[in-house]
């Protein structure tokens, strides 16, 4: 069904929902616009804290598409404003610019009809490309909002960035933000309205270069790390509130026939309760201190980021409306606590969602990929959601 979208009147939620599929069809021919932005932005390396090249490209793109007040700030966020017809309130759509890939990684993107592959295409070059393409898509579809739409590419989001970019923007921003949407490249069926508490970090073990045969220390940093891992697995975790510790990455040693003098463990502890997160952090410090005392090895614990749990409830009108929208687009929602920039919105008490654009796999691996054939559905979902917010259908009573 083709819907008249030009009125800027999004008062009828039923019209928005029933028009979502038709909107996706209208967006289908515009997928190339998103893909072109994905290539141009995604091939510019943007490791966390070094987003400048991508930032400059986004400034150019935002300026080219006619956003107002395009600017970047001291943390390298880039933002611009699409004026609403009334402009009484502000909707914020964000996508993080930074990726986990170092500058030296091959950032070439390969495009085939049903597969786009390359470093960071899913997390989050596609999300950023959609934000960069949004003004053009809205213009081509003649969609106007009565509220202002602020678009932002955020810096310093992942890993050590700890959403510093978005936090900094929200801290300094003077415009009242009604609602936020974090755009992620994948997955199309995710619906994140809450963030769990997270503490993410690394434990680094160093043993002396020269082995002290008289000492009680381990012969290898890997063995010391093993002891720490055993201690961590002994940390008691409650079933409620749900909590877990993920030991996601281990690196150590230089060669199979050399004693390892360095070993590193990457971990993430998650819980629905801030208190449990704090308890886990304390237990981790205790485990490290105990093993260090026993072995005499140098062990450091480096906390990369800490996020508080929170978010809007399942019954919040923003979540309720998004559920209806998923249903209208025949997407079965997968509720997933967000570990993204959503945490920053939560810290500032701004109702927000994280939405994915298409399906993808092998995230943060060499062959990270997305399926471009669903992009129009993801973009229709985003625009329909903005219409619903614009029409006042997502406000808490």
């Amino acid at each position, binding site marked *: 069904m083709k819907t008249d979208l030009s009125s800027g009147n999004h008062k009828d939620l039923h019209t928005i929902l029933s028009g979502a599929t038709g909107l996706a069809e209208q967006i289908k021919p515009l997928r*190339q616009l998103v*893909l072109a932005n994905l290539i*141009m932005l995604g091939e510019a390396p943007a490791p966390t804290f070094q987003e400048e090249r991508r930032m400059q490209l986004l400034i150019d793109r935002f300026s080219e598409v006619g956003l107002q007040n395009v600017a970047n700030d001291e943390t390298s966020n880039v933002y611009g404003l699409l004026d609403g017809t009334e402009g009484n309130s502000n909707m914020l759509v964000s996508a993080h610019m930074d990726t986990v890939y170092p500058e030296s990684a091959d950032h070439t993107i390969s495009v085939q009809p049903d597969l786009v592959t390359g470093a960071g295409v899913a997390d989050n070059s596609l999300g950023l490309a959609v934000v960069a393409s949004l003004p053009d898509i809205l213009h081509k579809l003649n969609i106007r909002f009565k509220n202002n739409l602020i678009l932002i590419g955020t810096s310093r989001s992942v890993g050590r960035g700890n959403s510093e970019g978005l936090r900094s923007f929200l801290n300094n921003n003077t415009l009242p933000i009604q609602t936020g949407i974090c755009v992620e490249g994948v997955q199309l069926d995710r619906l994140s309205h809450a963030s769990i508490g997270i503490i993410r970090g690394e434990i680094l073990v160093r043993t002396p270069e020269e082995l002290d045969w008289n000492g009680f220390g381990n012969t290898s940093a890997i063995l010391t790390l093993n002891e720490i891992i055993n201690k961590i697995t002994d940390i008691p975790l409650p079933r409620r509130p749900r909590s877990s510790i993920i030991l996601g990455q281990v690196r150590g040693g230089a060669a199979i026939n050399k004693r390892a003098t360095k070993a590193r463990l990457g971990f993430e502890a998650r819980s629905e309760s801030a208190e449990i997160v704090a308890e886990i952090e304390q237990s981790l410090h205790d485990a490290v201190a105990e093993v260090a005392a026993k072995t005499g090895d140098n062990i450091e614990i480096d906390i990369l980021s800490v996020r508080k749990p929170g978010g809007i409830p399942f019954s919040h009108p923003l979540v309720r409306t998004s559920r209806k929208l998923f249903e209208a687009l025949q997407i079965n929602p997968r509720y997933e606590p967000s570990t993204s920039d959503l945490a920053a919105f939560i810290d500032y008490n701004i109702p927000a969602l994280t939405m994915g654009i298409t399906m993808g796999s092998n995230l943060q691996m060499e062959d990270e990929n997305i399926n471009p054939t669903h992009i129009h559905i993801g973009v229709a979902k985003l625009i329909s959601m903005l219409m619903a917010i614009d029409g006042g259908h997502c406000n808490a009573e």
Partner: protein
Amino acid sequence: MQNKDWLKSNTYHHSDFWDLRKLVEEKQSRGLTISLCIPTLNEEKNIAKEVVLFRSELMERYPLLDEIAIIDSGSEDRTLEVAAEFGADTYLASDILPNLEPKRGKGENLWKAIYQLKGDIIVYVDADITNIHPRFVYGLIGPMIYRPEVGYVKAFYDRPLADSGVLRPSGGGRVTEILTRPLFSLFYPELTAVIQPLSGEYAVRREVLHSIPFPIGYGVETSHLIDLYNRFGMEVFAQTDLDKRVHRNQPTQALGRMAFGILQTFLRRAGDQEKLAIHSELNHYLKQFQVSKGAFEQIEHHIVEDERPPMDTIPEYRKKFGLD
């Protein structure tokens, strides 16, 4: 014109043309039409990216290109279907001017593009550039839009001109540095100012393009430079630094075959222009060796640099473009 002067006045960097809005305005004010030709053979893995990028950025956002055409040599994969799916016009070289005796080679595709495409300027870009970017097109079109006297703009890569103004080694390909540059130095010294004479990306005005013959194989770029230099001098050329170009690396033996074809084209022209005298018929068999089961095996390649005549001598072309 001295090499130094030409280099200074006719060498650009793609960033000189960053203002695409201005470039489009200038193009429109001059009433120019521009066609992009991508010659292909089995490029289904690469072609979508080029078409997506050029179509979205240089047709829809900035209407610099009036058409994007794929001219294919007869791919056995889905090159043409993929290109068409992303909105390019697709042609099989053998379907263009079908009454002519068929020939196969990249030069054949480039030549037939002159008949098939409508632009006043034709830009040729290879399909295997993995770091493709709009600069590969606008960097080449730029000098031609702003300077009517420039008829042929060639690409070069890897920033050979340092900020200090001191020329660093060009980083030209192996065949350029080992064969073409020494040959140009001996017989056409002025052409040595062209930093990468064999680069596959260039833009040409139709009236220039249709007036020169086309080797259908490896010698097409070399012949263009010699023929146009002979006719117009260095003033017809410009060159643009397009920064980095990432593409498939060719094995040395393939470069040997390339050099053999280029040499044939070169010798024919140098002979015709009485730069040197060749008193015997050239042999067209290149013999290379490969190791097979521990023994050397000789492989013979028959490489003849066949040529198409200038397009403006083809009656169908003259009729289509009203030259009679």
